[in-house]
């Protein structure tokens, strides 16, 4: 399976850590470092298995986590009787970085709201700069990865019998997915994997989906955090203006 999927919209290791912290409802000021390291490494392994282009920053963060974990295991240094020495928490620096990043992540969300408001106004003269419409992932890759992670785990529990060793490849699977989306769109993310019990097959399907997203042939969206992820077939922009969404009819006076 040497199929490299490259996605340049990776949010980075700090983002992944914040995801994990939120997912497990962890107090950011008191991170159970062993647990979070384990979770983090699991994601990293998954990314590597998918042959995603894992950036060096992710590996660096893994090293940092492991380092902190080992320091937490060390006994506190010998201190002379009665002398109070403020032991520095090995997590302190990481927590500071996370808090700092979180602040700007939230600021970015605010900017996004303001951008939405401003996009409703069309000034004179200014040819609305042709920004790329936000990438195909209306949800982040990390969220998609997390959902995929669940599917893989469930498949392992089911412990399937490996019987049909048919030839699988991503290219064919892309065509299958496109066919399926042309019949049914949107389709819930998990349903794309329904019936697949073999790990390799599930991974191929996921890679095919990533490729569709990358080529803007499909869109993944999530109406609310933790809600179901829906996959939409991506229509040509000029095609099919949606009649159902326009509220008032122009000229219906």
């Amino acid at each position, binding site marked *: 399976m040497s199929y490299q999927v490259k996605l340049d919209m990776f949010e*980075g290791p700090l983002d992944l850590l914040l995801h994990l912290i939120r997912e497990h409802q962890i107090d950011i000021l008191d991170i159970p470092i062993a647990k979070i390291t384990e979770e983090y490494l699991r994601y990293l392994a998954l990314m590597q298995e998918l042959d995603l282009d894992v950036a060096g920053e992710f590996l660096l963060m893994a090293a940092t986590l492991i380092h902190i974990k080992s320091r937490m295991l060390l006994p506190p240094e010998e201190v002379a009787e009665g002398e109070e020495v403020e032991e520095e928490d090995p997590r302190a620096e990481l927590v500071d970085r996370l808090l700092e990043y979180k602040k700007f992540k939230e600021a970015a969300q605010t900017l996004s709201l303001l951008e939405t*408001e401003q996009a409703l106004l069309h000034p004179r003269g200014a040819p609305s700069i042709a920004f790329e419409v936000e990438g195909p992932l209306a949800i982040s890759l990390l969220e998609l990865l997390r959902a995929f992670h669940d599917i893989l785990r469930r498949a392992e529990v089911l412990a399937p019998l490996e019987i049909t060793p048919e030839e699988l490849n991503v290219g064919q699977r892309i065509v299958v997915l496109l066919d399926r989306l042309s019949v049914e*769109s949107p389709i819930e993310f998990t349903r794309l994997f329904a019936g697949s019990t073999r790990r390799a097959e599930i991974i191929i399907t996921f890679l095919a989906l990533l490729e569709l997203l990358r080529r803007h042939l499909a869109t993944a969206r999530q109406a609310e955090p933790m809600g179901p992820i829906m996959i939409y077939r991506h229509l040509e922009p000029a095609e099919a*203006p*949606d009649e159902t969404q326009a509220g008032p009819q122009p000229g219906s006076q």
Partner: protein
Amino acid sequence: MTGQLDRRGVLEALLFVAEEPIPLGKLQEVLGDEDPAVTEASIRELAQRLEGEDRGLMIQEVAGGFRLTTRAEAHPWIQRLQQVKPARLSRAALETLAIIAYKQPITRAEVEAIRGVAVDGVMRTLLERGLIRMLGRKTEAGRPILYGTSPAFLEHFGFKDLGELPSLREIDELIGPPSPESPARSISSAGEDQPVAKTPSQDETRERTESGGSP
């Protein structure tokens, strides 16, 4: 004044031809006003006149000036006419931009330290789109380039100036409610009680979730 036009009419014409926001000082100069307060009063009068249900334009104070823009309520029709998707930045771009906006002047390495990932690609894009600009060089080894936001940044998000950036502490509260109270800030907020046009419901939220294809 010019012929049959009063000051407000002239202002309207000036704002109509302008390609970008006109600073108050410039309008004052063109109108020949002694006192900028007089010019500003006229702008507000004009803005108030535009508030009627039968008007599709409004005056927005943005990026250190005034400009004429369509009202948010007209957006669905404009979209039908032009069939363009509203401009949106990617999450990576927004995060990078937020860091630069709040921390400027800032070097690329400093941005990367906060985001924890390389940002050269994103920053190049932001530069190309004119949302950020180079402000100079830092006086340290290697003399790295310092970046900051541009007037186009202010326009893109509808800020008068950088002082309007929400403080980082306020942000939690701002994110809380899903739909902001006022869809867009017109410079005259006087007429709160005017009848609201039958706005297509949830237009904004829909925009956010449907920047791509339609179901």
